[in-house]
């Protein structure tokens, strides 16, 4: 399928990377970010490069346009052939002409990829200003046209807006408009939907596909998400430790991967089929939230400038049955984290009740709350920020019990047991957090929560910062521990796959309200609310089951 020049022009590669090797600086953990990598991408084709963090996929993408952080990271061997030139050999001026002119890039985080102090219209305009002789008026027309192409509402208003005034999806549309400005032959998209909400991700993916079809552009799409691959890829290349593991047409690779590593990766993607059977109804609730509301801000100022405030949680009611795991699913800004913070007692609700084992803890003072604190423990999203870097793992785990009066050596013995239970070595008590990987740190976080003998664990996106293969392990661990210790869990997530994997029940939250509640099996089979349906429709690769 990669036969050379005799093929029709459509099959000739737009970009051909041969034997690319990128060296890392001497102090890195390995000598090469990318090693002897060869891939091709043809016109009108979406090639997905998949890999976990550290696989070298982003370095590969950046080296195409010479955007590596010189002088530490540099290409030491190989060719990058594009339109009859080797991009590694051309003069800097020529490379600048290729950038955006013939090859453009879309980045992961549109908030930081745009200059915060410059209006977005001007930022897109800059591409045209640098590469064309168009007049200011003609450029403005073109930018407005581009904004229309990427379906931005009110192009004229967006043109005069700053990045922070747009939503995440709108910012990424601006980035796509910028990438399309000069109708390049190739677009490199580096995890362009990772930072976006599920429904926004679905929109951006379909937009990319639509535009790619319209202009016949080749797209090199970097991602870690096999769901996304299933959604848009024509062909797929799997990378690991800087090497190419497997490549081929996406359908066969996704259905029947040849290499063991690819098989593991694919198997690690949680299935959309709910794992836990429809549970019997239970009346015994560990946690019952009744008509809880929380509004941020909203005070009237001296000059009568009244701000309305943000109603983060609006009259939410929710139960967590004993021994069950309930998923709280919602997109960013839906109020799910605020709800969790109220339950843990980090935030005072404005009204409503939080019944913990029948005892209302809403509105209790700090002192009055103290006897109940240990009953609810939290596992946080970011395993790097949630462990004190100056404390030994043993202290991190044992601190809570020690504060409640458990003798230090007893607490440390318990810490060793807990480490064993979460799949780490007992000796880890004496080490510091930085000596562990993200997945291991999340295990420490779980051990810390368990040390308090909680009745309820609130897990706030506990795996969204982890690689796919690690994600699965941590999810399985949480699930096992929960069943083994008879714990109840409130699992906050934006990912329906994750919810289907570990939770018996789902509550869908949107704009501070719970729009639908029910058993996972029922919700997946017959979603009642339109928003739930939209969420389910947005899951990337929903048609793909491995």
């Amino acid at each position: 399928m990669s036969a050379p020049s005799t093929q029709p022009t459509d099959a000739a590669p737009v970009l051909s990377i041969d034997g690319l090797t990128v060296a890392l600086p001497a102090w890195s953990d390995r000598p090469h970010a990318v090693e002897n990598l060869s891939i091709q991408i043809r016109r009108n084709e979406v090639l997905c490069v998949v890999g976990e963090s550290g696989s070298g996929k982003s370095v590969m993408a950046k080296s195409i346009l010479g955007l590596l952080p010189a002088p530490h990271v540099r290409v030491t061997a190989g060719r990058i052939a594009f339109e009859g030139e080797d991009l590694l050999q051309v003069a800097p001026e020529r490379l600048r002409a290729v950038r955006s002119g013939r090859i453009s890039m879309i980045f992961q985080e549109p908030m930081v990829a745009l200059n915060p102090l410059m209006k977005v219209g001007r930022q897109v305009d800059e591409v045209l200003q640098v590469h064309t002789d168009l007049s200011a008026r003609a450029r403005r027309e073109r930018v407005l046209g581009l904004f229309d192409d990427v379906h931005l509402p009110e192009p004229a208003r967006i043109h005069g807006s700053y990045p922070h005034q747009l939503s995440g999806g709108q910012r990424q549309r601006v980035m796509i408009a910028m990438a399309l400005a000069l109708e390049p032959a190739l677009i490199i998209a580096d995890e362009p939907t990772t930072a976006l909400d599920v429904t926004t991700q679905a929109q951006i993916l379909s937009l990319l596909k639509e535009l790619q079809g319209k202009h016949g552009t080749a797209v090199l799409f970097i991602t870690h998400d096999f769901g996304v691959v299933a959604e848009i890829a024509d062909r797929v290349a799997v990378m690991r430790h800087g090497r190419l593991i497997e490549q081929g047409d996406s359908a066969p690779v996704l259905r029947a991967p040849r290499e063991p590593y690819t098989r593991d990766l694919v198997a690690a993607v949680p299935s959309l089929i709910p794992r836990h059977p429809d549970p019997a109804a239970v009346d015994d609730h560990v946690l019952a939230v009744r008509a809880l509301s929380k509004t941020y801000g909203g005070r009237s100022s001296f000059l009568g400038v009244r701000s309305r405030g943000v109603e983060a949680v609006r009259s939410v009611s929710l139960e967590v049955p004993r021994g069950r795991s309930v998923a709280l699913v919602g997109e960013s800004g839906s109020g799910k984290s605020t709800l969790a913070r109220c339950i843990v007692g980090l935030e005072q609700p404005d009204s409503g009740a939080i019944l913990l084992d029948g005892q209302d803890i809403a509105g209790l003072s700090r002192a009055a709350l103290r006897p109940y604190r240990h009953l609810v423990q939290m596992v946080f999203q970011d395993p790097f920020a949630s462990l004190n870097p100056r404390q030994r793992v043993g202290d991190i785990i044992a601190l809570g019990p020690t504060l409640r009066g458990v003798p230090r050596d007893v607490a440390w013995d318990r810490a060793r047991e807990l480490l064993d239970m979460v799949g780490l070595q007992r000796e880890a008590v004496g080490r510091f957090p930085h000596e562990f990987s993200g997945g291991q740190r999340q295990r420490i976080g779980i051990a810390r929560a368990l040390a308090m003998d909680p009745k309820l664990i609130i897990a706030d996106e506990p795996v969204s910062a982890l690689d796919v293969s690690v994600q699965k392990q941590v999810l399985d661990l949480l699930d096992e521990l929960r069943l083994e210790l008879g714990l109840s869990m409130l699992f906050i997530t934006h990912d329906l796959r994750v919810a289907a994997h570990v939770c018996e029940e789902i509550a869908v939250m949107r704009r501070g309200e719970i729009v639908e509640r029910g058993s996972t099996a029922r919700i997946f089979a017959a979603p009642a609310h339109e928003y739930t349906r939209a969420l389910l429709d947005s899951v990337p690769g929903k048609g793909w089951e491995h």
Partner: protein
Amino acid sequence: MAGGRFLRYIVWRLLQAVPVILGVTVLCFLMLQLAPGDLATVLAGEAGGASPGFIEELRARYGLDKPLLVQLALYIKNVAVLDLGFSFRHNATVASLLAERLFPTLLLMGSTLLLSVGLGVLSGLFAAIWVRTWRDHVISLVAIVAYATPLFWVGLMLILVFSIRLDWLPTSGMEDVVAFYEGWDRAVDIARHLVLPAITLSLFYLALYARLMRATMLEQRGLDYVTTARAKGLTERQITFRHVFRNALLPVVTMAGVQVGGLLGGSVVVESVFAWPGLGQLAFEALFSRDYNLLLGIFFMSACLVVLVNIVVDIVYVLLDPRIKVGT
């Protein structure tokens, strides 16, 4: 940002300033009472001693015999109508004394600010552009030396070299009083007098800004929006001036706001070294002659200046950074 909202914000900030300035005035008034001695004892001391009766008589004449709170209430009442009182020492109203010294101080402060921010930003910018070359090292080294040297010593050394040895610039004062320059000549004369004190006063902050600017520029250059700009095909020069520069300026503006607050305090030393006829020097004299009316007047004035400058800095910030919203 709507013009009406902006105006309302400024009015709101000015209203907020009233209690701040009032608080400063009350606090200064009470703190001055803690110091031993008053105008009466100083006058008596200068006269070579006096009987307790005479001192009491002096106190009565200047209103110093009344209870403390009555004195404070009287003072606040007067300040409220901008009557800062009378300096018996100088035999003139405090307001007229301040007015006379305000211009030299503002001139010195203004040029210091301009010099330190301007040159500091420029040297930081170039150090960042030439990063890790010998030119960067020279700028950084000079900045560290300037940073570490005490102010008064710099002033004395500058006088020694440029005024006494080389005889290029005058040693002290604001103008040559016996030359009776007029118009343009007078401006040039004042400018020549201004050079050394302005350099002395600005050196520390100049170095600070240079280091801050260099560090922020380098930090910003590693951010994603710069990679985006590079992927657009911009030259390094365009990236630096269109994208990085303005972003890197924000911390410097914050720091400049802090500098202005401290400028008046720092100018006491420099105005004394260079005999610059400003508020700092006046404060110095007033302190030693227990001329509390004058001293309080100076405090009041500088509180007003600091508050005003802070408002200006905040407005500049709003203009520079669209993410900062007014009135919330």
